[in-house]
């Protein structure tokens, strides 16, 4: 047993939907540990199984195999109404025939709490989400953002052990979405409740999550802090899905501790970081490298081609985007590359067609496991 007591512990969760044309594996042997008082994000494209995983925790889906523990206790045999977790639904699912107050009071009434206590809690919840003056309204009389707040208050009213949020911001417009991110984060910190949020929006995940699990094809590809996920992606999917990146084909020449000396196509050499699942790579292996556009340095080409760690290429396009300029560079090996340079005072402007030499630190270049 682990020394730490996790809020949610998913052990080898498998979910298979029996379909007419064959079985669909929605979750394939997924294990996950979500810490207490953590803002945890399940991130992935649609159909990756993130919502299914959330619904398994809520109890709306029965597991095909595996176990789910809530603070150490198995809950997978319990129906949803016996699980001390609440959900904020994608479409809020506010009860249209009840006022805002009655919606928020619903879980407390179902738990047969004292009416006076219910009134107090409802008042506290309304204040928490800044909706006090809307207590007597019906959901249809509220804007999307207001409905969202009521849905949060309703789910938090009974002080669940874990709050599950299923793409809660997807129905809001951009401005509101960005404001709600901060509010959600704040709400999590204020209440101290473990939040598990499902989203396909990487900005949302990076800005709110304490930790993120990136999912694809019914499996978790990588779990880590936003920085770990962004800076040290373990495989091509994660590197590609989070932010922008450049992929380079290379062959490992030698390995020294965490750093691999690699030869790119065309013969240029570069250092690259080997960690995580990629650590098993050996000299001679053909690998894929990932370099973020902002980690690339671009200089006018030196007299001696190939000198030092420079890789030769030429600018094919330049796009000014305010704080930065994006340069599209064609390496001499014809591999396209994107570099993102900050428009600071000393920045050099490169003209389209100009011969340049690009380079990056070994620490900024990752060897991907697959």
């Amino acid at each position, binding site marked *: 047993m682990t020394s730490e007591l996790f809020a949610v512990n998913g052990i080898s969760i498998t979910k298979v939907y029996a379909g007419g044309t064959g079985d669909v594996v929605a979750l394939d042997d997924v294990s996950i540990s979500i810490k207490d008082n953590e803002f945890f994000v399940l991130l992935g494209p649609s159909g990756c199984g993130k919502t299914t995983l959330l619904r398994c925790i809520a109890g709306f889906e029965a597991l095909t195999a595996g176990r789910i523990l809530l603070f150490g206790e198995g809950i997978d045999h319990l129906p949803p*109404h016996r699980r001390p977790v609440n959900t904020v639904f994608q479409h809020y*699912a506010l*009860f249209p025939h009840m006022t805002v107050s009655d919606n928020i009071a619903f879980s407390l009434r*179902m738990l047969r709490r004292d009416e006076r206590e219910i009134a107090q809690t409802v008042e506290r919840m309304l204040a928490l989400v800044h909706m006090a003056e809307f207590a007597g309204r019906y959901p*249809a009389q509220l804007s999307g953002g207001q409905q969202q707040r009521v849905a949060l208050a309703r789910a938090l009213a009974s002080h669940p052990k874990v709050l599950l949020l299923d793409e809660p911001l997807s129905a809001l417009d951009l401005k509101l979405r960005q404001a709600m991110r901060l509010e959600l984060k704040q709400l999590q910190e204020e209440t101290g409740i473990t939040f598990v949020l499902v989203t396909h929006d990487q900005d949302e995940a990076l800005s709110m999550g304490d930790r993120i699990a990136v999912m694809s094809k019914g499996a978790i590809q990588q779990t880590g802090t936003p920085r770990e996920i962004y800076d040290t992606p373990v495989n091509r999917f994660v590197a590609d899905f989070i932010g922008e990146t450049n992929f380079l084909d290379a062959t490992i020449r030698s390995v020294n501790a965490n750093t691999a000396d690699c030869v790119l196509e065309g013969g240029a050499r570069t250092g690259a970081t080997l960690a995580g699942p990629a650590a098993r790579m050996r000299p001679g292996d053909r690998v894929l490298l990932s370099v973020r556009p902002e980690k690339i340095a671009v200089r006018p080409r030196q007299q001696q081609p190939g000198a030092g760690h420079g890789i030769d290429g030429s600018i094919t396009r330049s796009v000014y985007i305010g704080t930065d300029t994006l340069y599209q560079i064609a390496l001499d090996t014809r591999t396209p590359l994107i570099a993102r340079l900050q428009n600071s005072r000393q920045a050099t402007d490169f003209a389209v067609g100009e011969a340049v030499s690009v380079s990056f630190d070994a620490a900024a270049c990752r060897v991907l496991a697959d």
Partner: protein
Amino acid sequence: MKPPRSRDLKRYPGFGAVTWACLVFLYGPLLVIALYSFNEIRSITVWGGFSLHWYAKAFNNELIQRSTWNSLVIALCAASMATTLATAAALAVIRHRRFRARETCIGIINLPLMVPEIVTAIASLVFFVLVGIPLGVGSIVLAHTVFCIPFAYLPISARLEGIEGYYEEAAGDLYADSRRAFRHVLLPMLMPGVLAGFMLAFIISLDDFIITNFVAGPGASTLPLAIYGLVRTGLTPEINAVSTLLLLVSVIFVILSCLLGRKRYPAGH
């Protein structure tokens, strides 16, 4: 968006004539009936001035009183039972998509709409006699319940189809077991459909003649049966008066049923 002119139905040749013909044939007779119920003289074809005395006469007719009371009791009982059964059926068929005989069930529920009424009437009579159910108000209620189910089922199932499954999930998530989720969330949301179904069933039962005529047995008369009996002894504006009232009740119920079926939750300010 308006359809392109050439395909606009209103521009087809004869559209106006056909429309007016339909309206006249459908509603002309009803208008005539209603109009002559206010006739001063006994004729139902010659106008002799305005009067309400046929209504007074109809209200004081003991046969009409008794059969109206019968009709109301029968319609109330049959509509209540049919609505309850139709609600249960709609829940089973719509909320449990996996269950195997689903299509067959929908077919069986709606079958009474397709079977010729005279066949149902004879079959019901034979069945009641065979099983030993005495003919009377009770047998009429049973027969009406059966053919009212599909009518009650229509608005209830339409309403239920429109209620997303996540409301029940939300109720469950917020600690309501399935019984309380139904009582506090699904049923209130379904209510407009249930009421619409009830009203439709009520009217269908109130209006029925053929099946009622077969299974009524001696003595248990309903309003349509009474009217038919009166017509056989000669048409008088009294019949017009009773028919007009029945028509009025039907129209009110159908309108209410439609409005309820469309009911939305409070929106805007």
